[in-house]
């Protein structure tokens, strides 16, 4: 039950993007399409979960004081792993996410830092926490990606919904990212209030 709560909090109550407003750069940068958003989100989730697991596994070995440096190293290592794997097996996605893959490091340091502090957590809850944050992040990215893709090019996950001529190009470009996210957050705020 507790784990369940732990898990769901990232989706709504403590969604890193809508509520905590963290990791805005990839949120805006990679969401020109739903697939990109999802891909980025899952990559982040993978790194976060793995890093959390490893950190909590080694928490007794690593002294408290070098926790942060080690955490950075571990996260960076996993990001590199993801980078390599993607490059090998998902070259197209890798290409479109571009710069933002390495930036997962920064993001995960941000998202995961609480974990580094809360050394009290066991492996399972760390993993759950990571997954929760990561999936919440993915959810937000996918939502934004879908909206932008739909408004911008009339597609959803690459499937045509209405003819391309009716797409509002702006939404796949930089300004559209800001504007769409702005109204999305406003909407979520509104829903959360009720």
């Amino acid at each position, binding site marked *: 039950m507790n784990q369940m709560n732990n898990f769901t909090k990232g989706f709504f109550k403590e969604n890193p993007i809508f509520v905590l407003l963290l990791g805005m750069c990839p949120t805006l940068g990679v969401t020109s399409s739903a697939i990109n958003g999802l891909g980025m989100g899952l990559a982040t989730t993978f790194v976060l979960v793995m890093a959390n697991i490893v950190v909590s596994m080694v928490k007794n070995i690593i002294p408290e*004081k*070098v926790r*942060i*440096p*080690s955490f*950075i*190293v571990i996260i960076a290592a996993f990001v590199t792993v993801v980078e390599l794997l993607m490059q090998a097996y998902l070259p197209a996605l890798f290409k479109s996410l571009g710069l933002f893959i390495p930036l997962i490091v920064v993001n995960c340091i941000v998202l995961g830092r609480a974990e580094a*502090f809360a050394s009290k957590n066991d492996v399972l809850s760390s993993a759950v926490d990571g997954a929760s944050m990561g999936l919440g992040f993915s959810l937000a990215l996918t939502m934004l990606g879908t909206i932008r893709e739909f408004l911008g090019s009339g597609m959803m996950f690459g499937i045509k919904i209405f003819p391309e001529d009716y797409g509002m190009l702006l939404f796949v470009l930089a300004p559209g990212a800001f504007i769409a996210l702005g109204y999305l957050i406003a909407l979520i705020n509104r829903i959360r209030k009720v």
Partner: protein
Amino acid sequence: MTIVYTIVSLSAIGTLAAVILYFVAQKFKVYEDPRIDDVEKALPGANCGGCGFAGCRAFAESCVKASDLSDLFCPVGGNDCMTGVADILGMEAVVQTPKVAVVRCNGGCDQRPKTNQFDGASSCAVAASLYSGETGCQYGCLSHGDCVTACDFDAIHMNPETGLPEVIDDKCVACGACVDACPKNLIELRKKAPKDRKIYVSCRNEDKGGVAKKSCSVACIGCSKCFKVCPFDAITMANNLAYIDADKCKLCRKCVVECPTNAIVELNFPPRKPKTDLPPKPAAKTVEKAAAPKESATDSQTENNETK
């Protein structure tokens, strides 16, 4: 070969960087008392400033740093919240009596005839800086609702019929914002009594009786009748005005009966048993001080009995 380079260079960079980071972590021990977070979580998170701090987090920091909690109180969370904070910090909570805002003016449109009409910016502060007000009573409510604007908790509303603000007891957290906002000093934070019952002099008019009575039919005229009848010495007289000390008042309601102008208000009491020769005053047209009449489905009946 690459793998050797990898290991060597990465270990070198990594270790160097990590050592620096380690030193940094030492030097700048991000000296975040984890209890601050805990305390913050225990707080309501209204960020209203009612506690006197910049926000809930600032308050949490002060709680953690303080040696005792006697000067620290979150009016929004109230005692429960402070006990929680005290638990986290292993300190004694200082229990404060819950309070609620009370508007001490009773002169609605029907009781206080207008002598002129105001046409400036709709703000009590502006009106007060200009003159004494739209009615003959220079102490009374100006009805522009600065208090309503000041309240972050949606706890005070203007009654369009009387033109007087009304506090919704359940929502009011006694943050005091309205007290500061009122240029006529009409609002007071009074001790909360069981079932939200209250008795108070709903008037601030310091004019002599005749003058006061002329400008407002429900003004306190300073006749001292309540003062004499109070068995608990809870009432003091000053400047032609009676004041009921909430700490001493035992809610016996003797004064209410005595007041010739109905300046004393009783709220949330069960209906009085109609005394044979004392029929209740015709329809409660004077005092309509209701505690959230629309929403509170509480058992405490909203009743306003002005009995002679």
